[in-house]
C-alpha cells in the first residue's frame, strides 16, 4: 500500500445544533482496502460517509478524498454512494433507475442501458430488469440500490449499512459481490453493526461518539483486548475510552 490513502480525515468535527455528530475523528482509508466502520447508532457513521461524499461540510478539521477536498466534481465522478435506505424511484422499472443514474454521470443513453444490463446480471436481477421497483422485494431493492451505486465504476465505494433488513443468504451474496469488486481494485468503506460482517473487512475502525476509538485488522483488535469476538473487543475499547 504505497499509494496515497483514498480517504484521509484529521480532527474531523461536524455539529448539528448542539449535537456533535463527529467530534475530532481521525481516520484514513488505504487505497484498495475494505474498511469496516463499526459503532452504535448515532456514533457518527453516516455523518462521516456524508462528509466523504461531499454532502456535508465539516464544521472543523480536514478531509481529503482521492487527493481532493470534497465536495468536488472529480470526487463525485469517482465515488459511489449506497445510501442506507434504498434511494430509488419506485414508479420506475429497475432498468430505468440504473439508466437514469448512469446518465447523471455523463453516460449516453445507449451506454447506460448496456451498463444497466451488466449490473442487473451482477446482482442477479436480470429477470426483474423491467419490473417496477415498487414491485420488488426488500432484498431485491437493496441489490438494485447497490447496482445504482456501481453504475459509473467508482474507485471508492461508500456503503452505508448495506445489509440492514437483508436475509442471511442475500447478505452473504452481497458480501461476495463486495469481495469481488474489491478484488477488482475498488476501495470500500462499509458501515455496519453486524460484527460478523466486520470480520470480512481488511481493517475495522471502531467509533463511538464521533471519535475513532480503535483501528486495526480484526485479529489485531481481538488480540489487543484479549477478546474472543469483535463485539467483546468493541465493548472493551469503549470502556477504555470512557475511562480515558
Amino acid at each position, binding site marked *: 500500500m504505497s499509494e496515497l490513502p483514498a480517504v484521509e480525515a484529521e480532527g474531523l468535527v461536524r455539529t448539528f445544533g448542539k449535537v456533535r455528530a463527529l467530534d475530532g475523528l481521525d481516520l484514513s482509508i488505504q487505497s484498495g482496502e475494505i474498511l469496516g466502520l463499526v459503532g452504535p447508532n448515532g456514533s457518527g457513521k453516516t455523518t462521516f460517509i456524508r462528509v466523504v461524499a461531499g*454532502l456535508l461540510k465539516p464544521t472543523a478539521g480536514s478531509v481529503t478524498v482521492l487527493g481532493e477536498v470534497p465536495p468536488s466534481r472529480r470526487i*463525485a465522478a469517482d465515488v459511489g*454512494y449506497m445510501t442506507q*435506505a434504498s434511494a430509488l424511484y419506485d414508479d420506475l422499472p429497475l432498468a430505468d433507475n440504473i439508466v437514469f443514474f448512469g446518465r*447523471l454521470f455523463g453516460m449516453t443513453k445507449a451506454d447506460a442501458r448496456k451498463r444497466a444490463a451488466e449490473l442487473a446480471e451482477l446482482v442477479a436481477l436480470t429477470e426483474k430488469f423491467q419490473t417496477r421497483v415498487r414491485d420488488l422485494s426488500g432484498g431485491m431493492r437493496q441489490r438494485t440500490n447497490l447496482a445504482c451505486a456501481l453504475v459509473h465504476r467508482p474507485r471508492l465505494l461508500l456503503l452505508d449499512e448495506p445489509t440492514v433488513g437483508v436475509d442471511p443468504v442475500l447478505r452473504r451474496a452481497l458480501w461476495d459481490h463486495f469481495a469481488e469488486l474489491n478484488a477488482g481494485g475498488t476501495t470500500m468503506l462499509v458501515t455496519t453493526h453486524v460484527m460478523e460482517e466486520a470480520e470480512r473487512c481488511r481493517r475495522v475502525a471502531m467509533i463511538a461518539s464521533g471519535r475513532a476509538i480503535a483501528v486495526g485488522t480484526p485479529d489485531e483488535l481481538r488480540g489487543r483486548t484479549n477478546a474472543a469476538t469483535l463485539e467483546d473487543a468493541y465493548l472493551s475499547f469503549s470502556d477504555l475510552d470512557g475511562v480515558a
Partner: protein
Amino acid sequence: MIVGRILAIAGRILNQFRHDRRTVALIAIVPLVVTALIGYLVSEDKEPLEVVIVNRDTGAQAPIGIVNVGAELERALEDSEGIEPVASKDVQEAEDDVRAQDVAGAVIVPADLTASLLGGERASIEVVVRGVDSGVDGPVLLGTQRALASLADRLSGLAPQGTPGFGGIEIERVATSGIGALPSIDHSAPVLIVAFAFLFTYLLTGISFLRERQSGTLERLMASPVVRLEVLLGYLLGFLGFAMIQALLILGYIVLVLDVRVAGSIWLVLLILAIMVIGVVNVGIALSFLARNELQVMQFIPLVFVPQVLLGGLVWPVETLHPALRWISQAFPITHAAAALREVMVGGAGFADVAGRVLAVLAFALAMVLVGVVALRRQAA
C-alpha cells in the same frame, strides 16, 4: 452545466408519469370535467331564449352592391342555437323588456355598423342583458357570438385588405341590473386554464420533490456530479412539458367542444402559461422543503392557491372587487396571467398589448427561481 444531465432529469420526470397512469388520468380528466361543468352552467339551456334585435344599420355601398351587415346578423341569429330573435325598432322598449324579464336580452346594431366595417374600422354591437343570472346572460352572449362568427365566415372577402374585417365586430355587454359582468365561459376559460396549470404544477412538483427528498434520491443526485442548477432546470423542463400538454388539452376542449373562439395566438397563450409554470415549479420545490409529508404539501393549497382563484377573476371579475382586494390581487401571478390570457383569447390581443401583464408574470417567475435556488442550496449544505 451539461445539457444531457438536464434532459435526463426532465426525461425521468416524464417517464415517472408514464408509469403512474392514475395520476396522469386524474390530471387529464379533472380539468376537463370542471371545465365542462362550468361550460354547462354558464352556457347551456334547453329552451331557446327570446332575444330582441334592434337593427338600426343603414347599410353601405360595397363592390358587390349595397350591403347591410345588421340584416345579415339578424339572419345569423335565426340560425344560432339557444336563442330566438325577435325584431324590434325601439331601443328603449327593448331595454325595458330585458329589465322586466320579458325577454332574455337585446342586440342593438348601430346605424354605422356596415359603414365602419367597410371603412376598415373596428365596430361593435351592444348586447343588453340583465346581468343577474349568468344562466340567462351566458346563452344570449354565446348565441350572439356564434352568430357573429358565422357572419364573419359568410362575409369574409368583402372587407378591405388589412382591416379587422367582419370578424372584428366586438360585443359590448350592457347590464340593466345587478352587478357588472358575470363570467361567461369566454371569461372563465382563460382563468380556468391558468388555475389548473398553477394547481397541478404546484401539486406535482411539490410532491415529486418531497418524494425525491424523502426517498433519499435527492441525496444520491447531490452525490453525483450533478449541480443544483441542473436539477432545477431538469425539473423545470419536465414539468413545463407536462403543464403545456395539460393546457393544450383544456384549450382543445374549450375550442372544439364548448365552441369558444380563440381570437389571438395560441403560441402567445402557451408562452404566458410557460412563464407562469416556471415560477410555480419553484414554488413547489421551495414549499416541499417546508412539508414533512404529502398531506402537508396539500395543506399549502389554501394559502398559495385559493386566494388567487378567489381574487384573480375566476369567480368575480377583478374590476368589481373592493379597491383594497383589487390591490392585493395585483400581487398574484394568476391575476396577471389570466388577464393576459383573456385579452389574447377573447380580445385577440397581440404580445405588445399584454406586455405589461407578461412582465408581471415574468417577475414572479424570476423571483420564484431565486427562491428555489436558495431553498435547494440550504437543503444541501
